[in-house]
């Protein structure tokens, strides 16, 4: 054993030197290489995960917004339709009312016209009658003046007129 070790040139102090070398290297690399690299890798991993989550939520929001927009659009168009319907209804109502009123007015006018015509006519009748009575009176006077008294004449005229 001793001889083998001697053949290979084994010296405890050299072993120790190598052990110290390794420990120094271990300490320095741990502080300067492994920790910073692993930290950066970890941070990057987290960042990627975070951005993936963000992207997902953004996509979700986009879909939601799209849905919202469509809903709003549908609602708006429905409202517009409703408003249009109402407007049409009220317009119809107004037109109908106007129609109604117009027809009423017309009837009234017609009635009034009729009435005034009637009144005119009866007035004319009256006038004609009176004129006729006068005419008859005059002609009767001329025809029967000599026979009948004035009083009889008048009675006769009145009777005749009534019979007419």
């Amino acid at each position, binding site marked *: 054993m001793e001889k083998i070790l001697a*053949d*290979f*040139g*084994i*010296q405890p*102090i*050299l*072993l*120790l*030197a*190598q*052990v110290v*070398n*390794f*420990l*120094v*290297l*271990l300490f*320095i*690399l*741990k502080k*300067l*290489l*492994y920790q*910073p*690299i*692993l930290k*950066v*890798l970890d*941070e*990057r991993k987290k*960042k990627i995960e975070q951005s993936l989550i963000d992207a997902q939520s953004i996509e979700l929001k986009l879909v939601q917004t799209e849905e919202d927009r469509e809903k709003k659009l549908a609602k708006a168009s429905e409202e517009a339709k409703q408003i249009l319907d109402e407007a049409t209804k009220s317009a119809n109502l107004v037109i109908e009312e106007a129609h109604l009123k117009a027809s009423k007015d017309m009837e009234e006018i017609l009635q009034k016209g009729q009435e005034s015509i009637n009144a005119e006519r009866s007035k004319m009748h009256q006038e004609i009658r009176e004129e006729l009575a006068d005419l008859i009176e005059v002609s009767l006077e001329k025809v029967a003046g000599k026979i009948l008294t004035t009083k009889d004449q008048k009675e006769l005229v009145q009777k005749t007129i009534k019979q007419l």
Partner: protein
Amino acid sequence: MEHEIVLKPEVLGYLGVLPVTNTLLVAWITMAILIILALFIKFRMKTIPGKFQNLIEIVIDTGYKTVEEMAHNKTKLFFPIVMTFFLYILISNWFGLFPGFATIGFYEQGEHGQTFVPLLRSINSDLNMTLGLALLSVAITHIFAIKFLGLKGYLKKWFSLEMFGVFLFVGLLELVGEFTKIVSLSFRLFGNIFAGEVVLATISNIFAFIVPLPFYFLELIVGFVQAAVFMMLTLVFMVLLSEKHGDEH
């Protein structure tokens, strides 16, 4: 120029009591490379990575996921150790393939006449280095086992009296296995890299142009595979040892 096959690393000089071998020098250079790389990453870190940062991130992330698959909730603790084993061994293996290794050096007057002393030598072609790593790997494994199982649970793994002492025998066998781990980890790495060095030196001696190229490719693969093997074995040992006894389904 003939290269002698030398198992021992060559001593370049002394730093106090510490003999600075050529492998130790390269170990320091490798460490410096890794530390500079780490500094570069640390102070140039961006959320949106450049090409270089991307490459490093892929390496670290792959390592982390591999460890996570086996260690689950202990990943945070195991990962830095296992990853450092991997990076240190990988970079030192590949760094050892650079030109200048085992060729730049000086002659020294030794006991047996003049010997060539290369200034640079691949770290893991020195058993000191691989044995150091293996010892540390097994030691950390046991420390984690004690941490996760408690001293009592840890000792129970080796000295159990269940099944009329059958498990005592099993425990003893496993205890021997722990020493085997040290030997297998260190010698596997050392053997592969040392053999690679020898092959490259030999081929280069036969014909230095073009012909060694396929072997360099082979050594690139071997360097990676050995680093990965060391890492995975350490990881598996850690996971197995720090697992509670009843946990294995």
